[in-house]
Structure formats: structure tokens, C-alpha cells
């Protein structure tokens, strides 16, 4: 699929316990700012998942701010995908890229 372009700031998620708030901003190149209550135990894995999802969506330029309150990996993926679609101004999710 053609890479998704970040047009605007997109936010998904909350700061509730067990959730994660993802903020996507325009940027050149991919940069991840991670702040997690389980950074010591899962920091590396969280960054990996973020990179992987961005790759699947073809996002090449984005600043991803991850404020994690102990979200499970499935929650992290869901919030990230939603935030990317919001910042790209798209409503129709193309599920096949995650197959």
C-alpha cells in the first residue's frame, strides 16, 4: 500500500491505567518519544511494536509520542493505528495490511 502521510496532529487513547495515549505529529523521519510505567520491563518491545505498525502503514515521517500506563500490546497497536488514521485524515481502515 502507498505510504500514509501525516497531515495533522492525531491523538488516540487516554491516560487511564492500562491504556496508552498516542499523539502523532508531523516530523521528518520517524521518531518515538516513549514514557511508560513499565519502561524497564517492556520499553524495547513497545518501541518495536510502534516501528512495526508504522512500517505496515507505510508511515515514513512522524513523531510518535507514547504515554503508556501499562497497556497490553493489542491496546497499543489499536491506539496507534487509530492515531495514525486520524492524523492522516482517513476514516476507512485498510485491515488487509495487518493480515
Amino acid at each position, binding site marked *: 500500500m502507498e505510504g500514509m502521510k501525516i497531515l495533522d496532529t492525531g491523538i488516540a487513547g487516554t491516560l487511564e491505567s492500562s491504556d496508552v495515549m498516542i499523539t502523532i505529529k508531523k516530523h521528518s523521519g520517524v521518531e518515538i518519544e516513549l514514557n511508560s510505567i*513499565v519502561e*524497564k*520491563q*517492556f520499553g524495547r518491545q513497545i518501541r518495536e511494536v510502534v516501528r512495526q505498525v508504522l512500517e505496515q502503514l507505510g508511515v515514513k515521517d512522524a513523531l510518535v509520542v507514547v504515554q503508556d500506563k501499562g497497556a*497490553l500490546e493489542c491496546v497499543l497497536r489499536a491506539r496507534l493505528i487509530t492515531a495514525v488514521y486520524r492524523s492522516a485524515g482517513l476514516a476507512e481502515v485498510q485491515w488487509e495490511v495487518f493480515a
Partner: protein
Amino acid sequence: MPDNSIGREIPSEILAQFSRNMFAGAYVNTPHVRQDKGNRTLPRLNKLVDNLEQVIVKTGLKDGMTISFHHHFRDGDKVVNLVMEAISQMGIKNLTVAASSLSAVHSPMVKHITDKTVSRIFTSGLRGELADAISNGIMDNPVLIHSHGGRARAIESGQIQIDVAFLGVPSCDVYGNANGYTGRSACGSLGYAKVDAGHARKTVLLTDNLVEYPNTPFSIHQDEVDYIVVVDEVGNPEGIGTGATRLTKNPKDILIGSLAAKVIACSGYFEDGFSFQTGSGGASLIATNFIRDYMLAQNIKAAWALGGITGQMVALHEEGLIKRLLDVQSFDREAIRSIGENRYHTEIDASYYANPLNKGCAVNKINVVVLSALEIDTDFNVNVLTGSDGVLRGASGGHCDTAVGAGLTVVVAPLIRGRSATVLERVQTVITPGATVDVLVTDRGVAVNPRRPRVEEQLRKNRIPIIPIAELQQKAERMVGKPEPVQYEKKIVAVVEYRDGTIMDVVRQVRIQ
């Protein structure tokens, strides 16, 4: 034949036979009694000292001594910070602080460690900034963590010798009779303080509520008290206890609490006249309410409950479902009210509660206990001290004391908290050995310690969902993923003592990444 000081002839052989000295005057050998009898213009005898500095001088506190505090004011405590600040100002160094516990409100202790006022700490728990600083290695000597019963044992056996106990009390008279349930800073039971008052070389009471003599009924007795200082506030009522411990609305906790109550009702230990203790965690608290439902349905009454008394326990007591309460620590305002009002809500000290080496402590006779856990491993060892990141953030409390004493020890915990698994192959720190834990109740099923096949059989008969603890561990890992192991430095920051005084585990400094 020699005469004594009032001219009576006392044969020397009588003195020898009874190993006694000659009478030498009415108060020569009793320095603490009034020597001013007959002189009515002198002030009435009391133990009041004007301020903290003066009292610290009078106690003879010197470098290297041991001082103690109690934690009945919990996060509302003002005494530790007040006393430590005064001691620090006076330049006394190298003290051992033997507190029954320390909490988040005691962050100023960090400063007193840094300026060498304090060089050792004995406590049940550590939280907040102080816990973080200690986990990061600010102390030269590791903190000694003991259980409530273990502390009482150490004090009564002389292993911990308290030079000066500084005990905040909600009410006190001029001669040192104090209780915990009257006054603006009421905290209920003074169970931990009683041990210190009974064994410290010098006992100082601090109060914000001086009342008429004699302050009956009293918990701390005048014959154990050396000095009294009146201060503005010993506690902040907001932090001492919430109005009534709020019941959880968390569906996971409700599920676990109801399952725990069902486990207890089916365990074989649930019979008329049984005894129990439930902790103050969300699931544990609500379990009390579900136990009540079973008691009503089956017409069962508890002879007594032990604690850590909460408003839930008080409600059952006042309803006639629990005949007697034994209270070492009152957790909320309802419990504080009750211990003052209810004839059979009885204050007990920490030794009576859980000292393993006295002639019989209450935990030995408890039938069922419900306990929380930060982590539990596949050998049923429980951690209530360090978080999943290895940082100190909890308390040993009465966990291992009640676990070994109870006939049925039920640990309640959600399978995962956020992204941290609660059931693990190996807990960060062992506070309670797995051999003393019988059942684990989670939101994803119940695991029974293989040591208790008859309990398991009983639960299976009643269709409780039983699952091996190893499967719970794997389930948890599938949900959260496999965490990177916590990185520690070599330095030991805390030593965990089991209730018998042996060393159970050590906590190491966390590595900053």
C-alpha cells in the same frame, strides 16, 4: 544491733537472711516518687516537658542510639517528621530508626539519611520518595524489613533495644495514660505503640490533646512513660483514615472477592464459631461483604475477627455476625469509632497479635485469612514489598504472620495489573513463603497449593474453577508478554527478615537505565 533511719533496731542477720538493705528514708530509693509531700505550693506532679528539644536532652539521646515510632497515623503522621527535624537540628548523628512502619509522608527522612542523622532503618514497609531513594542506594546499611509479629519478637527478646520511643497519642493525661480513640487525631488501636512503650529505655509521648487525669480507659500506661510533650498536631485526620473504607467498584476486584468468599464458604473451614481476618485491599475488603451473605444464608456466626479492623468488620460485628473483634490497628473512622464504643472490640498489641515466640499469639488461632499480593510465584511465594520494577513500594505487615497462623490462607490478586503479571515463575522478593499459602484466587481461576489436596477436593466438589498455578502463570504471560528481567546492582538495599528472625530474602539496588 544497728538502727535504721527511723531508729528501729534491725538485726543484721535478718537483712542477710532476706537479702535486703536497711530502710533509709521514705523516698531515698524511689527517685520517681514525689519528694515534696506536704508542700502544697509546688506544681502538681506531672511529666510535661516544654518542647521537643528539651525532652530529647532529658532522654539522654546520643549518637548511635536507637529510636522508635509507630505508624498508627499512617499517611497522616506528623510525629516522625517533627521529631526527626528536632533531632537533626540538635546535630545527633548515626541513629537507628526502628519504626513499626514508614509511609509516603516520611519523605523528609531522605534528608536525614543524607546528613547522617540516620544510618539504619528497621521497618515493616517503605513507600514514596523515601522508598525510591533507598531503592536507589542512598543508605550505607541495608534497611531491615520485618513483619509486625517479627518486630514484636525482636523487641521483646531484646534483639532490638529501643533507647527512646517517641510515640504520638491522640489523647493523654499529665502522667502518661494515653488512648487512641479520643481527640482530633484519633487513630483507634495503639497496638504497635504498646510494645514500644513497654520495652523502650525511655518513652516519650507526644500529644495534641491533653486531658484530665486519669485518662481511662488507657492503652499506654503511666508506669511506662517518662516524658510528655504537647505539640500542635500529632496527625492529620485526612491521612489517618478515610471516613469508611470505600468499597471497590472495580469489576475484577468484585469478581475476585466474590470467588474468594465462595472458596471460604466451601473450604470446610466455614462453620459456626469460626474466626477470620481480611486485609484492606479492594478484593479482600469486598470479600468480607460476600462472606456476610454466606453467613446470613447458612446462619453462621463468627466467634471473632482479627486485624487490621475495617468498617466492614465493624458492620458485621454490630449486626451480631462477628461476636468479638481483636484489633491491633484500626484502618478507618468506623473502626476508630467502634473501638471506643463497642465493649467487645478489643485492642491488642503487636506481640499478642503475632509474636511467634511468646506463649500464644492471636494469628495461631485464626481459621481463615484473606491476603493481597503484588506478586505470587508458581511455588506460592508472595511478594508484597517490591513492585514489578524491583523498587520498594509496600510493606511486610502481618502478611507472613497470618499466613502461617491461619488454617486456610487465601491470597487474592488479579492475574495481571496493567501490563504486569501478578502470577510469575519467580517473585522479585519473598515476604511470605509458599509453604504457608493455601489458595490463590484470581479473576481467571483458583489455584490450590499441592500441599492441600483435601482443600482442593472440597473446592472441586463445589464447582470452583480450579487451575494449576503454572497454567495461571502461562496465561498471564500470554497476555502481557515476556518482560525483560529487572536489572539490579550488586548493592543490597534491604534485608527481609522472616517473623522468626531468620533472613528470608534481600532486595538489591535497581539499575538506572
